[in-house]
C-alpha cells in the first residue's frame, strides 16, 4: 500500500514490489521443488540401498548355502574313506600293535620307520603308496571309489593337492604320492582331527604352501574304530583354495562390478574374481562389519577392494562350514557380496541429474513467469502511484481508466472518487480564500482609514527602528508630504537632540524586551485595578516611563509606547502614540485656577451670609440705641448686640476654632453622659422659645479618652442640628448605652427628616438645607471630623416614624478599666 502512496522514493519502491513478487513466487514454487528433489534423491538413495542390500544379502546367503553344500558334500564324500571296514580294521590292528609295545619301544619303531621313509625305502614306499589302502585313496581321487559309473566332479579332484592317511600314532600308512612326511602327530591338523582320541572333522585356515607355491587348506577327518568309540587314524586331504572355490564363486557376477567373494573372519580372501587369494581386506574396520554370525547387509564406509566410497555389502556366514572351521581354528568363513557404488548409485545419480536439470528449468520458468506476473501487477499500481502523486501535488487530472477487473481496478475507482472530492473541496476553498483575502484587504484599508482619521500621530517601527507605518496625523506632524516613508530610519524623521534620542532608544529596547502583553502597557494595569494612592510618588515614576512628554516642532506631545504583532512569525513592532498636549495643559491650568476661585467665592459667600445677619442685627440695634432714651430698653438692645456678637464669634470660631483649639487642649478622661448633658443645656439655651421636650435616658457607660471641648463641640453641633430640624414643637430622645462593641449614643428627633437625595451629602462642608444665614453648613462636617478622629463613627438615618436618628459610636478604649478605677476613687 505504502508503495503507492509514498512519493519520495517511487522508483526504488517500484522495483521492490516486482522483486518481492518474483521472490515470493520463487519461494512458493522453487522451495517445494527443491525439497521434493532432495527428498526424492534421499528416498531413492535409501531405497536403492535397501533393495540392493536385501538382494546382496539374499545372494550372499544363497551362495553361502551353496558353498556350505559343496564343502559338506566334499566332507561327506571324503568321509566315506574313514568308514571303510578294511581301513578301520587295519588301523585297529595298528593301534593294538602299538599298544602291545612299551612307549619307548613304540617310539623307537616310529623313528626307525621314519628314517626308512626319508631314505626312500622301496618296500615301505610301495606299501604306503601302492598298498591296498593307497589304492582306495587313488580310487577316491579318481572318483570311482563309491560308484565307478559316476565319478565325482573333476573340480574337486583336480583341486586336491594331497591325500594321505595316518594311524593313531601319526604314522603315514597310505598316500597317493611320495610327498608327505612320515610322522604327523605333532601337526595342528592332526591334533585338531584326533582331538584327544575323540575325533572331529578339521578344516584349516588357508595358508601359503611354499612347496606347492599356492594357497591351500586342509581337510582332516578322524577315522573312528568300528565302535565309533575312538579315533584310530586321521585322513588328510589338501586342496588348492583357488581351484576348489573358484568354480562356485568366481562365476557369480552381476553388472559390471558386482561379484561374490569368500573370506574368512580374519579378512583373508579365499576366493574372489578381483582380489587374489590370500590377500587381506584393506580396511580393518570393515572386517567385523561383514563377518557376524548372521546374514545381513550394511552400508560400509569402504568397499574392501581399495575404494573408500560408501558401499553396500551383503554378507552371510557359511553356517555348517564355519562350525567346523571355528571348532578347528576359531576362524569362520563368510560370503561377501559387493558392487561398486558408482554402478550401484548410477540410476539415482542419473535421476538426480535429470531432476536437477528440470529443477533449474522450472526455476527459470518461475522467474520468467513471476517477472511477467509481477509486471502485470506492478504496472497498473505504478500508474495509480503516478496519479496519486499528481493529485498530491494538486495537479488534477482526467479519471484513471483501468480494466484489470480486480482490486486494482477498485482502487483506481477509489482514487478517482478521491480526486473528484478533493477537486470540489479545493474549489470551495479557493473561493473562501478569495473572500477572506478581500476581507483582509478591507480590514487593512479600514484600519488604515481609522488610523488616518485619528488626530493623534501613530507611528509603528520595526525592531530595527525603521518606519513600518505612519498615519496621516503623524505625516502631518512630521511634515512628510509625499514619498514613501516606510523603511526609513525612525530617528531620521524625528528631529531630536541626542539626549532625547538616547532616551527614546532606551525605551524602545525596554518595550522590545517586555513586549507582553503588547498593547496594554504593564504600568497601566496596577493603576486601574489596585487603586493605588494617586498621590504616591513611585506611581508617578512608573507612568513617567511610558507617559512622557516630547517636544516636536515647538509643540508638546505626550507619548506612549506599545508593542504590536503586525506580521505573523516576526518580532513584534513597536508602536508610538503621540498626543498633542500643548493646548490641553494650558486649559488644565486655567481650569484649576477657576475651580480655586469658585470655591473661594462659595466660601466667602457662606461666611458673608453667616456674618451678615447678626451684623445687620447689630447695626439695627445700634441705630435703635441711638434713638432710644429708655435706659432699660437700651440695656436690652445692648444685650442683643452682645448676643449677636457672640454668635458671630461662634461662626468665626466654627471656621477657625477647630484648628486653634485642638493644639491647645490635651486629651483627658471624659464622662460622655456629663458632656452630653452639658451640650443639651448649651443647645437648649439657643432655642429658648421652642417647646421641645428632651427625653434623656443615660446608662452608665465607660469613660472615653478625648479632648473635652472638641467632643463637646461635636455633640453640640449634632444636637443643634436636631433642634433645628424640629423647628417648633417636638421631642428629642437621647440615650446612651454600652456593650462589648463600644459606646453608643442615639439622638432621635421628630423633625422633618432628611430627603434621601441629601443623605449622602449631609457631612459635606457647606451643605445646608437652611435658609440664608441660618446655618454655615459646617456643623455636621466638624462633628464628623471630630468623631472620626476619635476613632468613632457617626451615622444619620431617617426614622421610619418621623424625623431623623443620629447614631454615634465609639470603640471601647483599652485604658477604660484603669480610668474607671480612677473615677471610682
Amino acid at each position, binding site marked *: 500500500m505504502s508503495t503507492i502512496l509514498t512519493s519520495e522514493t517511487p522508483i526504488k519502491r517500484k522495483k521492490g514490489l516486482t522483486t518481492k513478487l518474483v521472490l515470493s513466487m520463487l519461494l512458493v514454487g522453487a522451495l517445494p521443488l527443491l525439497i521434493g528433489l532432495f527428498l526424492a534423491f534421499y528416498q531413492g538413495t535409501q531405497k536403492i540401498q535397501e533393495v540392493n542390500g536385501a538382494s546382496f544379502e539374499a545372494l550372499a546367503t544363497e551362495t553361502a548355502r551353496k558353498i556350505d553344500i559343496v564343502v559338506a558334500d566334499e566332507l561327506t564324500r571324503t568321509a566315506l574313506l574313514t568308514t571303510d571296514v578294511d581301513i578301520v*580294521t587295519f588301523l*585297529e*590292528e595298528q*593301534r*593294538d600293535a602299538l*599298544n602291545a609295545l612299551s612307549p619307548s619301544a613304540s617310539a623307537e619303531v616310529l623313528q626307525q620307520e621314519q628314517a626308512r621313509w626319508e631314505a626312500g625305502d622301496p618296500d615301505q614306499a610301495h606299501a604306503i603308496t601302492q598298498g591296498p589302502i593307497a589304492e582306495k585313496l587313488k580310487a577316491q581321487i579318481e572318483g570311482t571309489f563309491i560308484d565307478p559309473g559316476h565319478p565325482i566332479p573333476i573340480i574337486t579332484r583336480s583341486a586336491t593337492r594331497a591325500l594321505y592317511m595316518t594311524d593313531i600314532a601319526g604314522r603315514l600308512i597310505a598316500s597317493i604320492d611320495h610327498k608327505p612326511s612320515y610322522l604327523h602327530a605333532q601337526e595342528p591338523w592332526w591334533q585338531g582331527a584326533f*582331538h*584327544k*582320541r*575323540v575325533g*572331529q572333522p578339521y578344516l584349516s585356515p588357508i595358508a601359503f604352501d611354499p612347496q606347492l607355491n599356492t594357497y591351500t587348506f586342509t581337510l582332516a577327518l578322524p577315522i*573312528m*574304530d*568300528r*565302535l*565309533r*568309540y*575312538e579315533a584310530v587314524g586321521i585322513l588328510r586331504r589338501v586342496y588348492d583354495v583357488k581351484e576348489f572355490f573358484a568354480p562356485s564363486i568366481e562365476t557369480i557376477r552381476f553388472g559390471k562390478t558386482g561379484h561374490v567373494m569368500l573370506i574368512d573372519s580374519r579378512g583373508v580372501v579365499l576366493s574372489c574374481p578381483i582380489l587374489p587369494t590370500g590377500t587381506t581386506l584393506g580396511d580393518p574396520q570393515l572386517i567385523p562389519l561383514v563377518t557376524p*554370525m*548372521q546374514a545381513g547387509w550394511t552400508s560400509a564406509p569402504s568397499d574392501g577392494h581399495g575404494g573408500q566410497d560408501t558401499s553396500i555389502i551383503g554378507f552371510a*556366514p557359511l*553356517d555348517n562350514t*564355519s*562350525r567346523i572351521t*571355528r*571348532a*578347528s581354528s576359531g576362524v569362520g568363513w563368510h560370503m561377501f557380496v559387493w558392487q561398486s557404488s558408482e554402478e550401484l548409485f548410477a540410476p539415482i545419480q542419473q535421476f538426480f541429474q535429470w531432476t536437477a536439470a528440470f529443477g533449474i528449468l522450472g526455476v527459470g520458468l518461475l522467474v520468467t513467469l513471476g517477472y511477467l506476473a509481477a509486471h502485470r501487477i506492478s504496472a497498473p499500481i505504478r500508474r495509480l502511484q503516478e496519479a496519486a502523486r499528481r493529485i498530491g501535488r494538486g495537479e488534477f487530472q482526467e479519471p484513471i481508466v483501468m480494466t484489470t477487473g480486480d482490486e486494482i481496478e477498485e482502487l483506481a475507482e477509489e482514487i478517482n472518487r478521491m480526486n473528484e472530492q478533493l477537486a470540489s473541496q479545493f474549489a470551495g476553498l479557493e473561493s473562501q480564500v478569495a473572500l477572506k483575502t478581500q476581507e483582509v484587504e478591507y480590514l487593512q484599508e479600514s484600519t488604515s482609514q481609522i488610523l488616518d482619521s485619528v488626530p493623534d500621530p501613530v507611528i509603528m517601527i520595526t525592531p530595527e527602528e525603521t518606519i513600518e507605518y505612519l498615519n496621516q496625523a503623524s505625516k502631518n506632524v512630521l511634515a512628510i508630504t509625499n514619498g514613501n516613508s516606510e523603511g526609513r530610519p525612525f530617528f531620521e524623521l524625528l528631529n531630536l537632540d541626542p539626549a532625547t534620542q538616547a532616551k527614546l532608544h532606551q525605551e524602545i529596547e525596554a518595550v522590545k524586551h517586555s513586549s507582553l502583553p503588547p498593547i496594554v502597557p504593564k504600568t497601566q494595569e496596577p493603576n486601574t485595578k489596585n487603586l493605588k494612592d494617586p498621590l504616591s510618588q513611585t506611581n508617578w515614576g512608573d507612568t513617567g516611563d511610558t507617559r512622557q512628554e516630547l517636544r516636536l516642532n515647538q509643540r508638546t506631545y505626550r507619548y506612549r509606547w506599545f508593542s504590536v504583532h503586525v506580521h505573523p512569525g516576526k518580532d513584534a513592532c513597536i508602536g508610538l502614540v503621540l498626543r498633542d498636549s500643548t493646548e490641553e495643559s494650558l486649559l488644565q491650568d486655567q481650569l484649576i485656577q477657576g475651580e480655586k476661585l469658585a470655591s473661594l467665592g462659595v466660601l466667602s459667600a457662606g461666611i458673608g451670609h453667616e456674618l451678615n445677619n447678626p451684623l445687620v442685627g447689630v447695626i439695627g440695634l445700634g441705630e435703635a440705641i441711638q434713638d432710644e432714651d429708655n435706659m432699660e430698653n437700651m440695656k436690652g438692645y445692648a444685650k442683643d448686640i452682645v448676643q449677636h456678637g457672640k454668635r458671630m464669634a461662634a461662626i468665626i470660631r466654627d471656621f477657625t476654632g477647630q484648628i486653634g483649639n485642638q493644639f491647645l487642649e490635651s486629651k483627658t478622661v471624659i464622662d460622655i453622659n456629663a458632656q452630653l448633658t452639658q451640650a443639651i443645656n448649651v443647645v437648649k439655651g439657643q432655642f429658648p422659645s421652642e417647646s421641645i421636650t428632651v427625653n434623656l435616658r443615660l446608662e452608665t457607660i465607660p469613660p472615653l479618652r478625648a479632648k473635652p471641648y472638641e467632643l463637646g463641640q461635636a455633640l453640640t453641633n449634632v444636637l443643634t442640628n436636631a433642634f433645628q430640624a424640629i423647628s417648633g414643637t417636638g421631642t428629642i430622645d437621647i440615650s446612651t448605652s454600652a456593650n462589648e462593641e463600644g459606646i453608643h449614643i442615639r439622638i432621635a428627633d421628630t423633625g422633618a427628616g432628611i430627603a434621601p437625595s441629601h443623605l449622602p451629602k449631609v457631612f459635606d462642608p457647606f451643605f445646608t438645607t437652611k435658609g440664608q444665614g441660618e446655618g454655615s453648613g459646617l456643623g455636621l462636617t466638624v462633628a464628623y471630623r471630630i468623631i472620626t478622629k476619635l476613632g468613632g463613627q457617626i451615622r444619620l438615618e431617617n426614622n421610619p416614624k418621623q424625623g431623623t436618628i443620629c447614631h454615634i459610636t465609639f470603640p471601647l478604649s483599652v485604658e477604660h478599666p484603669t480610668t474607671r478605677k480612677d473615677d471610682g476613687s
Partner: protein
Amino acid sequence: MNITTSQCFLLASLLLTSVAIVPTQDLQATAPSPPPSLSPEKVSDYLHSIIEADRNIYTTYVVKRMQEKGIVLAREDWESSNAIPLPAQFLHYSSKLVAESGHGVRFRLISLWPIHRRNGPATEFERKALEDLQDAPDTPQRGIVTSGKKKFFQSIYADKGITQACIICHNSHPLSPKRDFQVGDLMGGVVITIPLDE
C-alpha cells in the same frame, strides 16, 4: 565339535558334576565292605539316569518353557540364529565333553532313523539292540563288544520322544527318514560304552 558359548560351559559343568558324583557315591557305598568291582551294568544304569535326567530337565524346563513363552527358540543352527541348542544337540555336546575329559566312558545317541548318518548304529550289536528295544523298550540291551583287541561293555537304553517339540522336529526335518513319530514313541537309543580292559 568345540563348545564355545557360555551355555555350553553351563552344560559342561552340570554334566561334569553329575559324572563326578558317581564315583563318590561308589566310594561311599563300597567303603564298609569293599567288593572287588562294581558291575558295568550298574555303572551304566547310574550314568543313564543322570544323562536322562539332565536332558529331560533341559528339554522341559529350558527349551519347552522358553519356546512357550516366546523368548527364544531351540534350533539346529542355534549358533548363527540367536537360538539355543536342541535337546539332542545338548546330549551330543555333553557326550563330546565327557569324551574329551579322557575318563574312557562314552555315550551317544543312535537311531534306526537318524537325521545324520553318523548317528546310525555303528555295529550290528547296536542295530540289533535298537530293534529289540522296539519290542521291549524298558529292558536295556547290554553286551560286551570289541574293537580289535579292545573290549567294551555297552548298554543301550530306549530313547523316547518325550515332548511335542521332539516329534515335530523329527517328523519335519528334511533329512529325517521317518516322519510319523508320535509322543512316547521309541525314537532311538542311548549307547553307554565303558572300556573293560583298563
